[in-house]
């Protein structure tokens, strides 16, 4: 077998010619078949007759070796005198011998390099091709390809050059003498990306990387500011904010309009404290007793009820005229029953009770006081999946007029996906009565929804002391909706109304929206009616996202005032024809909130366990050298704190199970988790042939089945066995005697009781076997 050797020889005295060729080198290449050999085993000796090589090299070499130095592939330098065990030199023949050292010292590398003063000699293979390299071909060696028979070396000499060690910048031409020329090429950005992708794909770890998963270092608030103009001299401004600020939930929406008709400011601010315990509201509010309200409100979550205190201030759209103080409470009574009510300083009150049980939802309500209409009623709703049933009754009495109304609706599947809903409605007072009966048919067809509704209405007027006036008419409404993902939506509604024997009136409404691109959104609104006084209106709204968080909104048609998005004219407003609004949105980093959960992971003796993954709900950290773990900025809530089994160091076992941790705002939680180190039990099964009661090198027995408790293993060829990753405790070790070869038996005792301390290894548990002696039964002859 051809073997390889690596040596670097220095400090040889090279007379005369060496100086003329200071950078010549000789490379001895191995044959191809040697490359398939194990480089670790490619150790041995190589014999190179330099004297025989010298003529081919064009050198007049006289070797007078003095000191030899060998540098292995790891840079370790070995020196010795020629003739020593490491290297031996003859008079004309340099014999490079390699005595293999212990594996821990160094290994024989596949590559070899040697130098004789200025002459580099590289020896790769014992039987090899000799290649003469250098920047200038030797007159004697250039173009020569001749065998340089040198003992066991099969050599061919030819000229070439090795790459220079300092590559120049990108070059496109070879060296002037045909030698290898090094160069570098910069990578393009795409190539860098591709390299990174390949690297990532290739280096994908078998499992997750040991990365910590921590709560966000900061929170975020999205703020929007808008400024617009509507034809006719009206200016509008918008301000919005939505997000978190140190665990405070913030929602702000405000709009202002200034124009010839005056100014108007509306807005709503909602602040919710961490843990949702407290909340504050200001601006436009909803009052259970008054409906629309304006003012301030504070609420506190308190167990099963939520008391709320409000101060309502009068405004142009409010139904109260003086400041009002209101108290509201929402109470969960249990079993699906809840009650909410509001009482105000103006004497008006409202009370609602709801009951939700499975598919049933029922409610009753009443409100009165405050010089406004008193009303009350009840409603039920039953959702049985395909079948739905609902009904309500309500009565109101105010401004000298009492009205009672009720309605009933039943929906049920009809044919295929067709659903039919039957409904009836009745409202009566002292002066009038209105009734309606009808049916609605609904059917989804893929992206298209179709709904058809027919109603027959009767209206009666009963003026005092006058004849009753009665009117009947029919109403048919068709709605077709089309939705293709979120990019295209289309809704068309056609309605016709007619009286028996009379002329029909019609109305058509269209709403459509299109995502033309990811940044461009178009909305269309149109209406035609022969019923209303204002028969036609249309609106086109184009929304264009721009760079730097900007957005342009343009409306053309019957546009109304600010803010954008309204499609109803406010009283006194005249529609314009053009409106423009520019918005800017920022995502603002805000201070993170949350609390701290910390602790330590400890062993049974209190020793710290390092690099242990600890999980807190979705978060994960690793313990430091002191076994400490720390989660900062943990949002309030309930979490499971546990040791992550999959990432636990292999020599440890989790002792602590998962524990529930309730994180509250501003409070630090400290916990201790425990692990236990695992141990090992091992030994040898042997036949005590020499009777010394110890396992000798040749006495091991392979294939013997050994049990440790219920775990079984088989001894290896040398009789050794081991059970790994064992928790501390008591174990029983035994050899399965029934599965021993027939000529062997266990030397009593065959079972061992073992006490294994935590993290310890018991590796000397040898089991002695002995040959089974079979008696000789002598027969009589």
């Amino acid at each position, binding site marked *: 077998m051809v073997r390889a050797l690596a040596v670097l020889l220095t400090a040889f005295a090279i007379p005369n010619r060496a100086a003329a060729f200071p950078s010549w080198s000789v490379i001895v290449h191995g044959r191809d078949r040697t490359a398939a050999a*194990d480089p670790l085993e490619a150790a041995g000796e190589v014999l190179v007759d330099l004297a025989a090589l010298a003529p081919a090299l064009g050198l007049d070499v006289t070797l007078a070796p003095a000191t030899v130095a060998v540098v292995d592939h*790891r840079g370790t330098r070995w020196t010795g005198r020629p003739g020593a065990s490491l290297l031996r030199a003859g008079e004309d023949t340099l014999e490079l011998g390699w005595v293999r050292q212990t594996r821990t010292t160094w290994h024989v590398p596949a590559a070899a390099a040697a130098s004789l003063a200025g002459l580099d000699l590289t020896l790769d293979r014992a039987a090899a091709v000799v290649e003469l390299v250098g920047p200038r071909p030797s007159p004697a060696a250039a173009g020569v390809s001749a065998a340089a028979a040198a003992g066991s070396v099969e050599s061919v000499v030819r000229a070439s050059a090795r790459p220079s060690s300092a590559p120049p910048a990108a070059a496109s031409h070879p060296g002037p003498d045909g030698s*290898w020329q090094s*160069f570098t090429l910069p990578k393009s950005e795409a190539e860098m990306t591709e390299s990174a992708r390949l690297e990532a794909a290739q280096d994908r770890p078998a499992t997750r990387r040991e990365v910590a998963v921590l709560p966000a270092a900061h929170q975020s608030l999205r703020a929007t500011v808008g400024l617009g103009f509507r034809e006719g001299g009206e200016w509008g401004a918008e301000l919005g904010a939505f997000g978190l600020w140190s665990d405070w939930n913030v929602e702000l929406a405000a709009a202002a309009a200034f124009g010839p008709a005056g100014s108007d400011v509306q807005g709503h601010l909602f602040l919710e404290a961490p843990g949702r315990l407290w909340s504050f509201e200001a601006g436009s509010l909803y009052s259970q007793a008054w409906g629309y309200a304006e003012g301030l409100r504070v609420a506190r979550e308190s167990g099963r009820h939520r008391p709320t205190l409000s101060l309502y201030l009068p405004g142009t759209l409010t139904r109260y005229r003086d400041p009002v103080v209101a108290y509201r409470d929402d109470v969960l009574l249990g079993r699906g029953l809840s009650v909410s009510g509001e009482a105000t300083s103006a004497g008006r009150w409202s009370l609602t009770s709801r009951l939700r049980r499975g598919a049933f939802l029922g409610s009753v309500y009443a409100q009165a006081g405050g010089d406004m209409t008193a009303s009350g009623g009840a409603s039920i709703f039953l959702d049985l999946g395909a079948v739905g049933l609902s009904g309500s009754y309500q009565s109101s009495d105010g401004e000298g007029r009492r009205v009672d109304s009720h309605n009933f609706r039943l929906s049920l599947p009809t044919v295929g996906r067709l659903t039919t809903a039957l409904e009836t409605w009745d409202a009566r007072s002292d002066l009038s009565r209105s009734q309606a009966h009808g049916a609605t048919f609904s059917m989804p067809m893929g992206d298209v929804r179709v709904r058809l509704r027919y109603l027959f209405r009767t209206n009666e007027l009963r003026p005092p002391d006058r004849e009753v006036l009665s009117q009947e008419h029919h109403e048919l409404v068709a709605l077709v909706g089309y939705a293709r993902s979120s990019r295209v939506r289309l809704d068309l509604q056609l309605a016709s109304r007619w009286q028996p024997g009379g002329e029909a009136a019609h109305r058509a409404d269209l709403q459509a929206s299109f995502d033309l691109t990811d940044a461009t959104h178009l909305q269309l609104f149109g209406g035609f009616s022969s019923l209303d006084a204002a028969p036609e209106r249309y609106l086109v709204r184009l929304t264009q996202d721009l760079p730097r968080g900007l957005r342009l909104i343009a409306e053309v048609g019957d546009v109304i005032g600010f803010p954008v998005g309204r499609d109803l004219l406010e009283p006194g407003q005249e529609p314009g024809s053009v409106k423009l609004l520019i918005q800017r949105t920022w995502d603002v980093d805000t201070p993170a909130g949350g609390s701290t959960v910390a602790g330590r992971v400890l062993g049974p003796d209190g020793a710290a366990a390092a690099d242990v993954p600890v999980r807190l709900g979705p978060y994960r950290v690793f313990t430091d050298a002191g076994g400490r773990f720390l989660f900062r900025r943990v949002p309030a809530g309930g979490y499971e704190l546990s040791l992550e089994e999959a990432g636990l*160091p292999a020599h440890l076992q989790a002792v602590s199970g998962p524990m529930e941790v309730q994180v509250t705002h501003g409070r630090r939680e400290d916990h201790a988790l425990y692990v236990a180190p695992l141990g090992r039990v091992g030994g040898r099964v042997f036949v005590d042939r020499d009777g010394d009661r110890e396992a000798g090198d040749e006495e091991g027995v392979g294939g013997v089945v050994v049990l440790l408790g219920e775990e079984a293993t088989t001894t290896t060829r040398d009789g050794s066995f081991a059970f790994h990753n064992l928790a501390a405790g008591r174990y029983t070790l035994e050899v*399965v005697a029934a599965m021993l070869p027939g000529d062997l038996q266990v030397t009593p005792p065959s079972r061992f009781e073992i006490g294994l301390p935590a993290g310890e290894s018991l590796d000397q548990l040898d089991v002695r076997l002995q040959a089974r002696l079979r008696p000789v039964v002598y027969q009589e002859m």
Partner: protein
Amino acid sequence: MTNLSLTWSLAACAALAAVPASALRFAATLDSIKVQAEPGRTVTRTFQLRLAEDEQRTRFHSHVEDFWHSEDGTQSFYRPAGTLERSCGSWVTLNPVEQAVDPGKSLDVRLSVAVPAAAAPGGYWCALTVDQLVDPLAAPAGVAVQFLASISVGIFVYLPPIERAARVLDVELTGAEARVRLQNEGNAPLAVEGRLELLRPGSSEIVATVTFPRTTLLLEPANRRWITVPLPPAAELPAGRYLVRAIIDIGLDHYVGVQREMEIRREPGATASP
């Protein structure tokens, strides 16, 4: 480098087989396990093997050993952990070492690398080998043939700073093949990709490009590696004189290359000459 080896070992054979011999079927995470670590720290990974649903309950034994390649990359060699100086085998603990797996279930081997505090920077490697075992308590049903599966994946541990450096030592063009010899001159195993471009002298037009497969250069026992790839057919790359340019990618922000003019002969067995 991905899966090191997946071998089926003939454990026993006999003239009369009681049952037909068949290979064990399973799915496993065969990507090599790469760990960026610091001295004194312990890093844990998991190797997973899932047994096919219709297999029988099977026992596996896991252990760590050293590995390396022949210089031409055609062979892999395995020895006990610690054979190589840059072995990470002694740093690795496994759990479980031995376990039986039910059909359709997984063997999840936790693999912890505890890097000594005094470990020098650079790359270290070893292999996780999972061997199928014969159930110790299963009574042999007469004489039978049994194939035992063995699977190995590489474990690479990198301790910063990692130095990436490689050199093209030689390029050989035979009649049908191109061979490039690379040398790892860094301090860690190196993944190398590259290509060979062949141009007519004096022209910038590339006549042929030969791509090298991704190859891992280890550091010991040999830090050199031949990469052999087939040359395009003679119709595409006729014999003649070419500027041969070898360009390698070792994950830096630039390629490294060497070039020179060579005479290419396309006869079988012919070797290019300068």
